[in-house]
C-alpha cells in the first residue's frame, strides 16, 4: 500500500487567491493511499522543501505529489528535494494548479473544485510510478566543429585550448569564412584580415585540432557523447603532405579566366588555386569543372612544374569516420541575391532594382572586396562596368530584409552598421565623393555602435535619407535612384555612379540538408533553432549539438565570437564528466508485442529508434523489433502514440497511468 504525501503550495497569493488551498489539502487527504496532506505558502522555498523532506522521513512516505506551478518551473527542484530525503526522485510528481487552474479561472468555488480534481488525478498517477534509475552514457571527449568561419575557429580554439581534441570541417578550400573577405570591421575599423589570419594560423598549428578543408559532412549517427560522423574529404587533386605551397602551379596554369568567387566574381583565378593569398592551409585545389586536364585530358602543366610532385589527378574523395562526443554547428550565412529567383522559391527577386542586371549595382560583400587592400582593385573603389571612380554613391539598406512581400520578414541586424562603415571607407578613399544612404530605421544596439553611425553622418558627411527607394534604372552611364525623404515629405532623385545594396542575411545554402543529417530543427528561413530563445540560446533541442554564429540567426562578429565561446563552454561542461547522466524518462519497447512495423522510427524526432534482432537459441532470426536507444531518446512520447500494437511505453507516462488519471475523475 502506498503512502502518498500531498503538498499544496499557495505560491504567495498566486494560487491561494482563487483556490481554497486548505480545503484542497483536507479533501485530498481523504483519498485512498494518501497518508499525509498539507499546504504551505512557498513550497519551493528552503523551509518549504524542509517541510517536504521532514514529512517524507517522519510519515514514511512512499510517493510525493506537489501541487504548485508547472513542472517546467520546479519539477527538478522538488525531485532533488525528494532524492535528498532518500526517495527515488521519479516517485515525485507535480500537479499544476497555477498555470492550469488559479491563473486562468476567476470563480473561487469552481477553481477549488478543479484543483482538487487535478491533484486527485496526479495521486492516481503517482501510485503507478516506478523507481527509475538514472541513465548513464559514456562520453567521447572529442568534438566536431562544422564550419571554419570566425565562429567555428573560435569554438575550435576554445575547446582545443582546454585540452580536448577537435575535428574542424570546412567546405571551402580554406578556413576563414566571410570574415576573411571583409575589408575593415565596425565599430573600430580594424582590418579584418589582420585580426583574422593569426587565428587561422593558430587553428592550423594547434596540436589538438584536426583540420579538414574542402570537406563536407556525409552523415551523422549516434547520440550525445557518442556520435559517429562520416566526413567526405573531397578530392583536392593536390597531395597536402607533399605540397609546399610555393604557388608555381598557379602561376603556370594556362586557364586563368575563372571568376574568383572569393572576390565576388570581380577578379579572375586559375583552375588550380587557393582562394586568397593568406589561405589556411596554403595548399591549392584543382577546380575540376574548369580545369582543361579534367575537361579534355590534355594539359597537365601543373603536374609537370610541381617540384615536390604533389599534383595528383587520380585522387578521389575520401570518407573518414570520426567518433566525437559533441558537435558545434557554425555554418554561417549567405547573402540574399536580388537576381530573379527560380520558380517555386518563396523568396522573390527585385524587379524594381533591375534584378541584378545593372552592372554597377553591387551588394555589400562586393563593396567589401572593392574596399579591401587585398581585393581585386587593391583597395580602390572602382565601378565594375568601366573601372571609373564613383563620385556619387548610393547605399540602400533593408534590401530583402524586413520585406514580407519578398519573403523575409526579419531584420538582418548587421546592415545598418556595415553600411555606416561603407560610407566611412568610401569617404576615406574618395575625398571628393558624396555618399547617400536610404534607410528605414537605423538599428545600432551595440557597444559604441550608435556613436559610430553618428560619426559617419557628422564627421564623414554621409547624407542619410530616411525613406526607401522605389526604383533603379540605368540612364547613360548613371544609375537613377528614385527614392523619398519622409522627413521632408518629398520624392528624391539621385543620379548615382554606383549603388550598393545591403542585402539580407540568409542561412548558408544547404543548411536544411545538414540539419536533417544532424537531426536538429530549423525555422522557415532555415536558420537553426536553439532549444530556448532566452535560457538555452546555444544548445539545440537535440542533446550534444550546439550552435555558434550566424547559422542560428543574423549576427555581427562580436556576437558570433561570444556565442562560439559559449558553445565551446557548453561542450567543455559536457566533457567535464566521464559519464553523462540522463533523465530516465525514455520510451521502452515491449519486444513480445512489437511486430517490427517501425512506424515509431518514422515519427521519432530524435532518431532514437534502432533495429534489434531477436534470435532463438540456435541463432535463427525470429523477428526484428524496435529498440529505443535510451541515450538518444528525448522522452517526447510520439512513438507511444503512434505504435499500432501498443508496444512502446514512455516511463512515467504509461497507458496504465493515463487511464488511472482519467478514471479518477
Amino acid at each position, binding site marked *: 500500500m502506498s503512502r502518498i504525501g500531498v503538498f499544496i503550495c499557495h505560491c504567495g497569493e498566486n494560487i491561494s487567491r482563487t483556490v481554497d488551498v486548505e480545503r484542497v489539502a483536507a479533501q485530498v487527504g481523504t483519498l485512498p493511499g494518501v497518508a499525509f496532506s498539507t499546504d504551505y505558502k512557498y513550497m519551493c522555498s528552503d523551509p518549504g522543501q524542509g517541510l517536504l523532506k521532514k514529512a517524507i522521513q517522519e510519515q514514511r512516505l512512499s510517493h510525493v505529489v506537489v501541487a504548485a506551478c508547472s513542472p517546467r518551473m520546479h519539477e527538478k527542484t522538488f525531485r532533488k528535494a525528494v532524492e535528498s530525503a532518500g526517495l527515488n526522485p521519479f516517485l515525485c510528481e507535480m500537479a499544476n494548479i497555477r498555470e492550469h487552474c488559479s491563473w486562468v479561472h476567476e470563480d473561487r468555488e469552481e477553481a477549488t473544485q478543479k484543483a482538487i480534481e487535478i491533484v486527485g488525478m496526479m495521486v492516481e498517477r503517482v501510485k503507478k510510478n516506478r523507481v527509475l534509475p538514472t541513465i548513464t552514457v559514456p562520453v567521447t571527449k572529442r568534438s566536431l566543429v562544422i564550419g571554419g568561419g570566425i565562429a567555428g575557429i573560435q569554438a575550435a580554439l576554445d575547446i582545443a585550448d582546454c585540452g580536448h581534441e577537435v575535428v574542424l570541417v570546412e567546405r571551402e578550400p580554406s578556413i576563414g569564412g566571410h570574415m576573411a573577405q571583409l575589408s575593415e570591421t565596425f565599430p573600430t575599423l580594424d582590418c579584418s584580415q589582420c585580426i583574422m589570419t593569426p587565428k587561422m594560423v593558430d587553428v592550423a598549428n594547434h596540436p589538438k585540432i584536426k583540420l579538414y578543408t574542402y570537406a563536407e559532412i556525409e552523415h551523422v549517427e549516434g547520440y550525445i557523447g557518442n556520435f559517429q560522423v562520416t566526413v567526405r574529404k573531397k578530392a583536392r587533386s593536390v597531395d597536402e603532405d607533399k605540397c609546399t605551397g610555393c604557388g608555381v602551379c598557379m602561376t603556370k596554369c594556362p586557364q586563368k579566366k575563372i571568376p574568383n568567387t572569393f572576390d565576388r566574381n570581380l577578379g579572375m583565378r586559375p583552375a588550380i588555386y587557393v582562394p586568397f593569398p593568406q589561405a589556411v592551409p596554403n595548399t591549392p585545389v584543382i577546380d575540376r569543372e574548369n580545369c582543361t586536364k579534367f575537361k579534355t585530358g590534355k594539359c597537365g602543366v601543373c603536374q609537370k612544374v610541381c617540384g615536390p610532385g604533389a599534383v595528383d589527378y587520380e585522387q578521389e574523395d575520401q570518407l573518414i569516420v570520426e567518433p566525437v562526443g559533441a558537435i558545434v554547428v557554425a555554418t554561417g550565412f549567405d547573402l540574399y541575391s536580388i537576381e530573379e529567383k527560380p520558380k517555386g522559391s518563396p523568396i522573390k527577386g527585385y524587379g524594381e532594382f533591375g534584378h541584378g542586371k545593372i552592372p554597377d549595382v553591387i551588394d555589400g560583400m562586393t563593396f567589401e572586396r572593392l574596399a579591401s587592400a587585398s581585393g581585386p582593385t587593391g583597395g580602390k573603389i572602382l565601378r565594375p562596368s568601366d573601372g571609373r571612380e564613383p563620385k556619387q554613391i548610393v547605399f540602400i539598406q533593408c534590401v530583402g530584409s524586413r520585406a514580407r512581400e519578398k519573403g523575409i520578414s526579419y531584420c538582418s541586424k548587421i546592415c545598418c552598421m556595415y553600411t555606416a562603415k561603407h560610407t566611412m571607407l568610401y569617404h576615406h578613399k574618395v575625398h571628393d565623393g558624396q555618399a547617400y544612404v536610404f534607410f528605414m530605421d537605423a538599428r545600432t544596439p551595440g557597444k559604441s555602435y550608435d556613436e559610430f553611425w*553618428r560619426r559617419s553622418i*557628422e564627421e564623414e558627411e554621409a*547624407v542619410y535619407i530616411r525613406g526607401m527607394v522605389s526604383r533603379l534604372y540605368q540612364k547613360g552611364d548613371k544609375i537613377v535612384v528614385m527614392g523619398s525623404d519622409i522627413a521632408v515629405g518629398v520624392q528624391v*532623385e539621385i543620379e548615382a555612379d554606383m549603388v550598393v545594396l545591403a542585402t539580407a542575411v540568409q542561412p548558408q545554402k544547404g543548411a536544411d540538408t545538414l540539419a536533417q543529417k544532424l537531426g536538429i530543427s530549423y525555422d522557415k528561413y532555415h536558420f537553426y533553432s536553439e532549444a530556448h530563445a532566452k535560457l538555452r540560446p546555444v544548445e539545440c533541442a537535440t542533446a550534444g549539438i550546439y550552435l555558434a554564429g550566424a547559422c542560428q540567426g543574423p549576427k555581427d562578429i562580436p556576437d558570433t565570437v561570444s556565442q562560439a565561446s559559449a558553445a565551446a563552454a557548453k561542450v567543455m561542461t559536457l566533457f567535464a564528466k566521464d559519464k553523462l547522466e540522463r533523465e530516465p524518462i525514455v520510451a521502452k519497447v515491449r519486444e513480445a508485442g512489437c511486430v517490427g512495423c517501425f512506424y515509431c522510427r518514422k515519427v521519432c524526432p530524435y532518431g532514437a529508434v534502432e533495429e534489434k534482432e531477436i534470435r532463438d537459441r540456435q541463432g535463427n532470426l525470429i523477428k526484428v523489433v524496435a529498440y529505443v536507444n535510451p541515450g538518444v531518446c528525448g522522452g517526447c512520447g510520439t512513438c507511444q502514440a503512434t505504435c499500432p500494437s501498443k508496444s512502446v511505453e514512455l516511463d512515467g507516462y504509461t497507458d496504465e497511468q493515463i487511464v488511472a488519471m482519467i478514471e479518477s475523475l
Partner: protein
Amino acid sequence: MLLSTETMDVDFVRKVEALSGTSVRRCFQCGKCSAGCPMATFMEHPPNRVVRLLQLGQWQRILAGRSIWYCASCETCSTRCPNKVHLASIMDALRKLSWDAEGPSKESYVQLANRLFLQNIRTYGRQYEMRLAAVFNVKSGQFLKDLMLGPKLISKGKLKMFHQKNKNMIEIEKIFGRIEEMRKNGEAL
C-alpha cells in the same frame, strides 16, 4: 528633388553653422523641436523639417517660406533638443542670411520693414514712424492697414507728424559706409 553635390549647397550650410555655432548634421530627426514649438502650426515647414532641408542643402526651400519669420525665438526647441542642436540660433542665422540670398523672402514684409527701417535711420539719423508706416503700406500694397491707429497714436504723442533730424548725420553716414565696406570685403553679413 534632385540630389547631387551641385544641388546640395554645402557652403550655405557651413555659413549657417558658423553663424549659429551649432551643428546641423547632428540632428537625427526625432521631432522634439516641432513637438514643442508654439508656432509650428503656422509654419509650412515645422522646425525639424527646416533642419532636414538644411542637411540636404536645400536653403531655397526654407527661405521661400515663412517659417523662419514665424519663429518667435522662444528657444523651446533649443532647450529641449536631445542632441544639443541650437535651433533658435539656426533660425537667427537663416534670417540673417536671407538678407542677401536670392529668393521670395526678399519680397516678404519682414524684409521690407527691415529695409525701410534702416533707410529711415540713414536719412534722418533716427526713426520717422509716419514715413515708415506710410511707405510700408504703399510698398506692401495694403494702403489702409492699421490706418485707424494713426489718430490715437498722434493724440498720445507717439507718432510725430514731422521728422526730426539727428545732428550728427556725418557720423551716422560713416557708420553705414563702414558696414558697407565690411560687407564688400566679406567681413560682415
